[in-house]
């Protein structure tokens, strides 16, 4: 596994570089928006990747609730964390694209607001996991993740069923996209998906090591002879 990871990392870096070249050079310039439309090739794949990660988080949370599996809990944590990173990219690139095209950075439109709510739900999930010391934290987090996942289809379909400031879907839903643009979009999505998978793998490995270390320290504290604690504890004697 240790040898496979660097090879996959190099391949992913090459794929990301190729995807960047396709987005900036090969993709045709959009007629109305011009070059700024190329933000699409980072904005949309990041959103799709975040949705997939939140979906995996949802499945892992359900598995945890049913089986109390430690692995499922770790997968849920990792996918939520990496999903928040990708969702942050969506929330940052969106306004940068909106400013030259709509003339505003942000509007409380349904799609934008629901995406912000989604981000806030998963940030609160991570805060709960980070700062709660209760033994019930994974259980509470799994329940929160299931509620959070309900927001994903709302975000995705909000532009299908409601008229919003955010553009209507260009893929499916009656919209259309130049086949060359679609090709570049899919390459970028593949590149970002591979990148997300690698980051999740690293984060999962880190979490495994962290938990092993915590368990070892807890075990050591339990097995430590009582007398050895007096090295750090003060000794109080009656006068």
């Amino acid at each position, binding site marked *: 596994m240790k040898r496979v990871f660097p090879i996959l990392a190099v391949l992913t870096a090459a794929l990301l570089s190729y995807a960047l070249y396709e987005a900036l050079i090969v993709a045709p310039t959009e007629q109305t928006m011009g070059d700024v439309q190329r933000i699409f090739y980072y904005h949309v794949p990041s959103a799709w990747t975040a949705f997939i990660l939140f979906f995996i988080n949802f499945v892992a949370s359900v598995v945890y609730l049913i089986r109390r599996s430690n692995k499922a809990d770790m997968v849920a944590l990792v996918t939520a964390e990496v999903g928040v990173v990708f969702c942050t990219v969506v929330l940052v690139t969106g306004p940068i*694209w909106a400013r030259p095209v709509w003339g505003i950075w942000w509007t409380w439109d349904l799609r934008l607001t629901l995406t912000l709510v989604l981000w806030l739900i998963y940030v609160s999930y991570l805060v709960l996991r980070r700062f709660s010391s209760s033994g019930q934290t994974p259980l509470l987090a799994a329940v929160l993740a299931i509620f959070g996942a309900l927001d994903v289809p709302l975000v995705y379909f909000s532009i299908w069923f409601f008229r919003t400031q955010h553009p209507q879907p260009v893929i499916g839903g009656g919209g259309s996209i130049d086949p060359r643009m679609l090709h570049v979009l899919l390459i970028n999505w593949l590149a970002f998906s591979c990148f997300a998978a690698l980051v999740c793998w690293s984060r999962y490995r*880190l979490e495994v*090591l962290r938990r092993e270390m915590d368990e070892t320290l807890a075990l050591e504290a339990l097995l430590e002879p009582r007398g050895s604690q007096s090295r750090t504890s003060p000794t109080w004697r009656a006068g």
Partner: protein
Amino acid sequence: MSYLYAAYIATWAIHVAYLGTLLRRYIRLRDEIAEFNTRDEK
């Protein structure tokens, strides 16, 4: 064009920042493991 570059730079800044936090956590854990092993040897 500046908006386009700003968006691409912001994307990679976010990813690099996250990878930086992962690296920092790895280093902290490695140090903890090393400290635990040396303490165990004593």
